[in-house]
């Protein structure tokens, strides 16, 4: 690239970022978010006061989950917007019923070194879910190297990412940015696009807001984002998977709930398998206990049952979680690596079963 082009690029970047850097009071551009066509660049929405740190502009509320979905160890920044004058309806077991105009934003990022997870963070993609009259629309934007802007990728993309992991080892992953259909591959309930994360049981935790820590369910209610929610102590809550004080069965089921049950449930895309992994599923055969596979193909790995009590190595669940072969691995999408910690948890749980 010629030097002067680079110079102009730098100049433009400085100019464009000026107002953003100094104006915390800026609003996100709701009109742009609700335009008939998605913007080509994410900057059109004015979502962030600062891209790099993912500091949101007014109108976007950050939130966290108790148990996040595993996505190749990516860090995630989550935000929600609910239009003035309307609110999401609380639901005990499903994702909240958001009003028209609601927006969910999730940015995926990697630190250069997971031993210093707050430093040198590289943004990869930001996904938008926008509730329109025709249903939730899903778009993925891929950040440029300077993290000045992100570009819409309708068909998804592959992004090679390198980082140092917690053990100090160098890892390269061919990170997959999903397209809209792939998003829907998980975000489906009864064929309709649906959000996954904002379920009572998974956001019922504290968040460190600017004014201090508060329970997210209660704060959402206070600011009018949510209506009909009970007190947080009355609402369901999944345990943290790394909280060893919690019985392993509950932690394992919480893990399977967030990582698998969006498909593996009666109303989900994997309904035909008959394997249902929701946190509330009571019937042992339904959650895999001595359950035979139906259409697993070579995903069975020559094993006969999904979960064989006490025998992780004879359980198809383990075989598929431990694989990165697309014809075998579960979940089908969203990971190119094995989630070592998740696998260890599920192994230990199966070992504990009688």
């Amino acid at each position, binding site marked *: 690239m010629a030097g002067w082009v680079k110079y102009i690029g730098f100049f433009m970047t400085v100019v464009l970022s000026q107002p953003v850097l100094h104006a915390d009071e800026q609003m996100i551009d709701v009109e742009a978010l609700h335009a008939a066509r998605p913007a080509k660049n994410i900057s059109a929405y004015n979502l962030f006061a600062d891209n790099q740190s993912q500091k949101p502009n007014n109108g976007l509320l950050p939130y966290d989950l108790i148990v996040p979905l595993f996505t190749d160890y990516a860090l995630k920044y989550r935000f929600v917007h609910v239009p003035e004058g309307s609110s999401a309806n609380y639901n005990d077991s499903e994702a909240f019923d958001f009003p028209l105009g609601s927006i969910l934003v999730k940015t995926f990022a990697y630190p250069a070194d997971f031993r210093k997870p707050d430093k040198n963070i590289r943004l990869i993609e930001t996904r938008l879910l926008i509730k329109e009259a025709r249903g939730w629309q899903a778009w993925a934007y891929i950040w440029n190297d300077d993290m000045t802007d992100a570009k819409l990728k309708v068909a998804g993309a592959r992004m090679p990412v390198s980082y140092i992991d917690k053990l100090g080892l160098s890892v390269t992953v061919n990170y997959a940015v999903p397209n809209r259909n792939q998003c829907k591959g998980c975000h489906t309930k009864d064929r309709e696009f649906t959000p996954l994360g904002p379920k009572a049981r998974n956001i019922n935790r504290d968040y460190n807001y600017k004014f201090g820590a508060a329970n997210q369910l209660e704060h959402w209610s206070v600011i009018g984002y949510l209506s009909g929610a009970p007190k947080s102590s009355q609402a369901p809550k999944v345990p943290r998977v790394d909280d060893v004080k919690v019985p392993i069965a509950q932690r394992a089921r919480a893990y399977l709930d967030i990582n698998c049950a969006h498909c593996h449930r009666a109303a989900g895309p994997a309904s035909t398998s*008959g394997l249902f992994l929701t946190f509330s599923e009571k019937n042992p055969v339904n959650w895999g206990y001595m359950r035979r596979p*139906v259409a697993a193909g070579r995903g069975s790995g020559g094993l006969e049952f999904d979960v064989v009590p006490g025998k992780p190595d004879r359980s198809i669940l383990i075989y598929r979680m431990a694989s990165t072969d697309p014809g*075998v691995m579960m979940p089908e999408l969203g990971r190119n690596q094995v989630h070592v910690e998740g696998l260890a948890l599920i192994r230990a749980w199966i070992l504990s079963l009688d």
Partner: protein
Amino acid sequence: MRDQVIKVMISLMFLFSASVFAEDNIIHVEHGPDAYEQLQEALILAEPGTTIMVAAGRYDFVDALSLDVSDITVRGAGMDKTIFNFKGQQAGSEGILVTSDRVTLEGFAVVDTPGDGIKIKGVDTVTIRVVRVEWTGGPKASNGAYGLYPVSSKNVLIENSLVIGASDAGIYVGQSQNIVIRHNIAQYNVAGIEIENSYFSDVHNNISQNNTGGILVFDLPGLPQGGGHSTRLFNNIIQNNNTANFAPKGNIVAMVPAGTGVMVMANRGIEVFDNIFDENASAHVIIAAYPRKYYDDAYIPTARRVLLTGNKYGRGGFDPAKMIKTLVGSRTDEVYSDIIWDGAVDGFWSFMFGIDDDDSILVDEAAGTTMVNLNIVHEIYLPWGSSLDQNIENYRGTRARLQAVQLPQDQKQE
């Protein structure tokens, strides 16, 4: 027999030519390095009513394709011209996934997917025509499970297509209804064609050959849609299905004995007529109960109301798989049979008083056809007095026949 061969061959003449219609809304996808992005973008952004034309060429894709817009046609230049090669696929448990209604896929090939070839999930009205799904390395356990795989769908038409090498079933329709599978070739799969937990299927004028089992009609317990019924298998050529079973263990098809022509397991209302069976080494037709433990109160494991008539049987049962040898051979010195029924009936009542006429197994075949009833239930209740029944005349009879399956796809063409 000759007439039937000619009839099937004529219907197969259309196999390798894609049809072309005039449409207003066409998106062209050209061959080149951006083809994946172009095609996947078209599959997402196309308006209903669009035809997406994919130019001839071999496309190496590392990610799956998916379609969730209704009323779309995806058309290649032919099953040997437009080839989607998924050998290097990095994610996605199938090559192509369709989740929208009234979709037509035609004139292309999907080869070497690590998982399933083309999966159709939860749709109303889908047509797959002149499509090839193939694992090019021959029959191997490492091949994907299903070639053409509609599930939880209705009004399913698969025609003039070719499936080779699936490690489970080449053409597999599960938990669906209103299904027509016609004029296809399925070969070197574990199961050539399988209808599972489905209602109202016509499987006709296909050639199913060199699979482990030619055509399977199964009903399995513990699934959202159970109680499979009303399947007609007719005018098919089912031959040489003697490939050693290469399905990964744990899957139900892994227990299908090599050398099986047709296997009916735990269904009700199955008609098998006017087919040609030849050179299936274990048996041309096996009628059996689901053999495993199950936890499903609504499930009926026995095969009921089966009718076999007008089929032609060439040499069969001449070199049965070990399982058949153990089941049959241990109890008789007689030659093996064209037709094997396990004789499993629904409980002690049926054992004492016979099956209801409505549920009986009827065999109305030409003289010289051989059959054995293993009388499994007798074996259970009276192991000391049990014997095989090899008198085919005991099963002769006829009954009211199933109606042909009507599809909206066929109404439109008329």
